[in-house]
């Protein structure tokens, strides 16, 4: 065989690029012998593989800063590994499937770590969690240690964890305001409001007229953070906006500012409808709060233009009279400070025709203005109303009131509701109350929940109400109650053996057990037989 066969042919000693070119085109066109080319290829292939090109001149990176903190124990590592796992086998080691529940477990685990660190190889997974779940970032940073900063510097996605940034800051800089999508611009504005409300408002005012109506609604709602009377001019302007959504947001925000002109307008309307000045049965008149007699109600006769401008919807929902609706709307938006103290107000009789409307209006106001005193005064009568006729609207309103109540009040109500039985308790949005209770639940709530479950499950075994309560209780019950939950599961198993319908109870028990394990998880690894370990805590994955 000769070295060069034909015009374009490639010989034995040809370099790889020529060989490759010839092979791509084909010997039919380049001329030459395909088999000879194949032999050349074989030689090259083996040589190239044996001498695989390394990447030349790679500089060593700066090492991560030394971290004197100790590591969590091996059992704790196994659990957090399962919580963070992406592969299904490891994931299944955690009894909770849904993402939100797993995050709660993770948050609890992280909270219990108490200054100790996770093994370094788990830090990337933790940083990934923090990308989406901002509220976990401070605890994540604590458990990940300085390694997190070092890693964050290498990957923009983790930029939030980079050294020198406050734990809550994000990767979005001011350029997002100019260039970002509406979601990110809203987020940016929201964060700026937290730091500097005036600056954020100025930013929005500057571009207000150029924004699209949809964007105006989104961006305006960011003012909810750090709302003050300084925002009034912009909000008043937004009340005249052509787009309804923008007007709704503006009216809602103005309603939260009792001293605004809007608040005064609403107060005037409210006082025109509600006559506090009637004398009591004794005819005595006491102080500025008016009399003690029945409260006179005179709903508005029309919904005029200024009322509509202030966000009062002229058309009532189906089943509600026009005038009652307008009254409710006015009461819901009027500052609660115009009324006497809740106890005094509510003690006075109201004509039966308007009592429900007045209560709803005031409850809406209490929820919107986050007025704890009013919410407390209204929540129990409203609960009673929901139990007796259970209007869907009233249940929503009840949930809104629960959002205002302080934790210990919620706990007391949850316990009281549960004492009346599980079914009745679930009817008054108890799950919402329980979800708002501090976690883990205070002893009174935990006792009440467990008691209700024991009473309900002990004889009947299941039911969807119990299932959804168990799902919540699995994450919120104090983990020390694990033995009692296990005993409950045992009893249910005895009542309904082999029933897949009660599998949720097993999951409930397993979850509480899982959590109990990380009550005391973070101690160092016990020293293993025969070998003294310098860093006992690092036995991680051995």
């Amino acid at each position: 065989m000769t070295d060069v066969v034909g015009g374009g042919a490639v010989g034995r000693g040809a370099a790889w690029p020529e060989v490759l070119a010839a092979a791509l085109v084909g010997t039919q066109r380049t001329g030459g012998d395909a088999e000879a080319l194949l032999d050349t290829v074989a030689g090259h292939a083996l040589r190239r593989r044996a001498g695989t090109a390394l990447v030349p001149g790679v500089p060593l990176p700066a090492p991560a800063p030394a971290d004197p903190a100790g590591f969590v124990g091996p059992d704790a590592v196994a659990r957090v590994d399962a919580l963070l796992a992406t592969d299904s086998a490891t994931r299944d080691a955690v009894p909770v499937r849904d993402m939100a529940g797993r995050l709660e477990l993770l948050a609890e685990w992280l909270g219990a770590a108490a200054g100790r660190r996770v093994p370094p190889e788990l830090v990337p997974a933790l940083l990934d969690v923090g990308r989406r779940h901002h509220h976990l970032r401070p605890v994540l940073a604590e458990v990940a240690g300085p390694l997190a900063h070092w890693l964050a510097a290498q990957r923009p996605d983790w930029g939030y964890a980079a050294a020198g940034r406050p734990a809550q800051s994000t990767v979005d800089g001011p350029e997002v305001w100019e260039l970002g999508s509406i979601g990110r611009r809203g987020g940016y504005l929201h964060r700026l409001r937290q730091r500097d409300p005036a600056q954020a408002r100025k930013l929005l005012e500057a571009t207000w007229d150029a924004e699209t109506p949809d964007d105006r609604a989104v961006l305006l709602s960011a003012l909810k953070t750090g709302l003050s009377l300084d925002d009034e001019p912009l909000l008043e302007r937004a009340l005249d906006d052509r787009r309804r959504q923008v007007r709704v947001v503006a009216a809602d925000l103005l309603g939260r500012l009792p001293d605004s002109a809007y608040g005064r307008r609403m107060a005037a309307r409210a006082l025109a409808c509600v006559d506090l000045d009637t004398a009591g049965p004794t005819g005595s008149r006491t102080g500025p709060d008016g009399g003690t007699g029945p409260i006179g109600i005179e709903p508005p006769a029309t919904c005029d233009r200024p009322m509509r401008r202030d966000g009062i919807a002229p058309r009532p929902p189906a089943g509600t009279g026009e005038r009652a609706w307008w009254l409710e709307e006015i009461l819901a938006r009027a500052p609660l400070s115009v009324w006497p103290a809740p106890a005094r107000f509510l003690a006075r009789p109201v004509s039966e025709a308007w009592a429900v409307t007045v209560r709803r209006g005031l409850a809406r106001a209490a929820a919107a203005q986050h007025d704890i005193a009013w919410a407390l005064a209204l929540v129990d009568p409203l609960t009673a109303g929901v139990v007796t006729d259970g209007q869907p609207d009233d249940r929503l309103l009840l949930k809104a009131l629960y959002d205002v109540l302080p934790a210990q009040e919620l706990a007391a109500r949850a316990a009281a509701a549960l004492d009346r039985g599980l079914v009745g308790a679930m009817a008054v949005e108890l799950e919402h109350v329980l979800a708002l209770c501090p976690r883990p639940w205070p002893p009174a709530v935990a006792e009440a929940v467990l008691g209700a479950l024991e009473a309900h499950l002990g004889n009947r075994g299941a039911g969807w109400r119990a299932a959804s309560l168990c799902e919540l209780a699995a994450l919120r019950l104090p983990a020390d109650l694990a033995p009692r939950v296990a005993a409950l599961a045992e009893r249910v198993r005895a009542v309904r053996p082999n029933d897949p319908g009660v599998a949720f109870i097993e999951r409930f028990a397993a979850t509480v057990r899982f959590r109990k394990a990380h009550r005391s998880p973070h101690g160092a690894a016990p020293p293993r037989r025969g070998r003294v370990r310098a860093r006992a805590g690092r036995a991680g994955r051995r």
Partner: protein
Amino acid sequence: MPDAVVDVPRWSADQVLSLAPDASAQRAARALAGGKAWSEVGFSADDALPPTVWGLCQGSDVQPYQTCVDLTEPAYRCTCPSRKFPCKHTLAVLLRWAAGTVPDAPAPAWVREWQASRAERTRAYGPKEAARTGGESNGRAAGTKATLRRAERVAAGLAELDRWLADQLRGGLAGVARLGYAHWDTMAARLIDAQAPGAARLVRNLGDYVGDPERLLAELGLLRLLAAGFARLDSLPPELAATLRLRVGLPVSAEEVLAGPAVRDRWQVLGVRDEPENDLLVRRVWLRGAQTGRAALVLSFAGPGQVFVTDLVPGTALDADLCFYPENVRVLIARRHAPAAPITSVAGALPVPAAMREYAQALARDPWLERWPMVLADVVPVKAGDRWCLTAGGDGVPLDPAAGAPWRLVAAAGGRPVVVAGEWTAAGLRPLSVWTGDRLVRL
């Protein structure tokens, strides 16, 4: 049988749980291990009995389940009806032993009977391990005539492959990109018909490289080596000839392999990698001899729903005799001298140039070597341009981009030199485990 074992190194809980077929078995075993269901738990080892742990566990049956484990292999037996293997009772009794709560005690009769029947079977059929991971067998039983006929068919098939390879270069590779997988599958099917499954697999894989002409061409070149080499098999050195026959797909039975010389060493488990291949899951466990420095590969297969039965856990070492296949990497475990024991450092880690040299030597013995276990000493993972690599300063060993960004490895190393064990392929290194100090991290 080992002589009176005085002290069997205790396993770690991790090692025990790695035997579990799934996570639910792990959970069940953990719960059961601490429970009160156990009676008559004990450990015993003497001249007649390999190290064995046993226990009686009260389950839902009237009779308690008899559970025992031979620690050398390990082999399990439990009278429970569970179809999981090993079952939760087996794992739980091992966990108790790992936790140090199992007393030494004379073995009851049922344990001795079981071990005796196992010893009987071993004598009758040869080591169980070999049967389990042996791959094709019975090659010789069919007689020399069939063997001859097969050799002819294979030779004809490979001759056709050789012509086909040349055809690809005549037409030019630029054109084949359009042809799709069927183009390669047709030739692969013909090689299957010719009873050359090894060559068929190589041809079928060509379809994956259509987007990468350099790789495709290199693979064609290596196939040419295979076909041309087979044509003059008799003139090749015997070792290379045997390797070539194996790569073509001529069967080597487990008996033949086990008949070869055994290499005893403390075999360190470097890493495990599971990959789907056709309908099977293939598990590759990479070993290195602590004294001999030899690389070894234990291959096992699991069908859908099956689990791997293996106690080869990274971070442990196994004192055993291994028999090598002709290509000098794949092995069968001929005999275990002791159960796997944890290790705290890895032997035979090489600097980058030496590791690459070692690979080149392995390639010289077997040009069709697709994977090679590499243990790199004191390297740091770094991103150079758009490629991750491992470096000790200077040249970097590229990582296989298909393995994704190695953040776990980067975090474990923290920018400091670590020992990395991985699988070297033509696309780059796939890291499997990393040692930082005396700590092993699986990747």
